[in-house]
């Protein structure tokens, strides 16, 4: 194949481009990615996300939860832990509005065995909601922190809560454990747990 000299004289609508995109739309590689979703086909006594070390190319994680109770008689209370650590290695602060007043609680002055709670409603079509941000989950040098916004409105629940949680450990988070505080009132069918990675 011969070499043909290309000059602007033969190009219509010639314009100089300053980058390799040459007018094409930039490609997005995703800064907020869905990693996993678990939707309960039947009630469950725990939900666990494992193998999170495979997501170490993300900086942060976000959990988005819709939660109901398996029982129409009582709420379920979800407690969040990480790496299978059920010891008293957590602390947390919260502010909570119940429709009448705002209160603040803490576990700073004493160790806790969980870092976040969410109360799930007891009616099948009413779900409590949570957004949980897990910061620097793969860090080798930082104790791990989360912040969450949770709420339940209806079916006996009236609250909104902002909570920070601390796991006093610098190990990378490799699993997330979500368990009911009372094994008699577990997570209801249709409850949804979605995990996202944030770059």
């Amino acid at each position: 194949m011969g070499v043909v000299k290309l000059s602007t004289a033969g190009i219509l609508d010639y314009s100089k481009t300053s980058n390799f995109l040459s007018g094409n739309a930039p490609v997005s590689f995703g800064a907020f990615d869905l990693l996993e979703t678990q939707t309960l086909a039947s009630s469950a006594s725990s939900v666990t996300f494992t193998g999170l070390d495979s997501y170490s190319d993300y900086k942060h994680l976000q959990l988005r939860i819709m939660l109901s109770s398996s029982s129409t008689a009582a709420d379920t209370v979800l407690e969040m832990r990480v790496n299978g650590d059920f010891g008293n290695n957590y602390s947390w602060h919260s502010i909570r509005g119940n429709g009448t007043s705002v209160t603040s609680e803490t576990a700073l002055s004493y160790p806790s065995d969980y870092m976040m709670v969410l109360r799930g409603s007891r009616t099948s079509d009413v779900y409590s909601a949570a957004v949980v941000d897990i910061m620097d989950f793969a860090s080798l040098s930082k104790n791990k922190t989360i912040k969450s916004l949770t709420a339940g409105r209806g079916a006996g629940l009236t609250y909104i809560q902002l909570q920070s949680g601390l796991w006093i450990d610098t190990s990378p988070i490799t699993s997330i454990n979500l368990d009911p505080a009372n094994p008699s009132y577990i997570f209801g069918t249709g409850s949804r747990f979605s995990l996202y990675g944030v770059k």
Partner: protein
Amino acid sequence: MATPTYDLLDSVTLASSASSVTFSSIDQSYRDLVLVCGNVNASSANQNFVFYLNGDYYPSTAYSAVFMEGNGSVIDSDSETGGYFIRFTTSTNRLQTDSNAILAIQLFDYTQTDRHKTALVNRSDSYATMRLAGRWANTSAITSITVDGNVAAGATYHLYGISA
């Protein structure tokens, strides 16, 4: 396999003041929605600011809500049933001409027809910070969101979809 999400579905920037903005025919292929409102100021003092769904105008027996707010000196919480989904209509949280409010509204499971619809709201502005939860006791998919209130030019509304 990771799936990129948090996709922009629609956006509106007010070129002039408006009393209402509606996002209609909302894409039904996502699991959650996030509506981010920025630079929100009232076009005149003391304006109510209300969100409602699918044309179910307020007050409606299907709406209930709970909120908490703090303004640096006072903290407060209130709730209601049979009124509003998301509203800012009290003396402490109506829009002002210098509110510079920003809101992030998380709408969960908006296409799921086996459950009521729930929202979590973060709002901060020049006067206060507020967290609110709203429930729409209706199992229909959300197809439209209306923002009601006399809002000044310059406000931005961005609607995002999140897969699950």
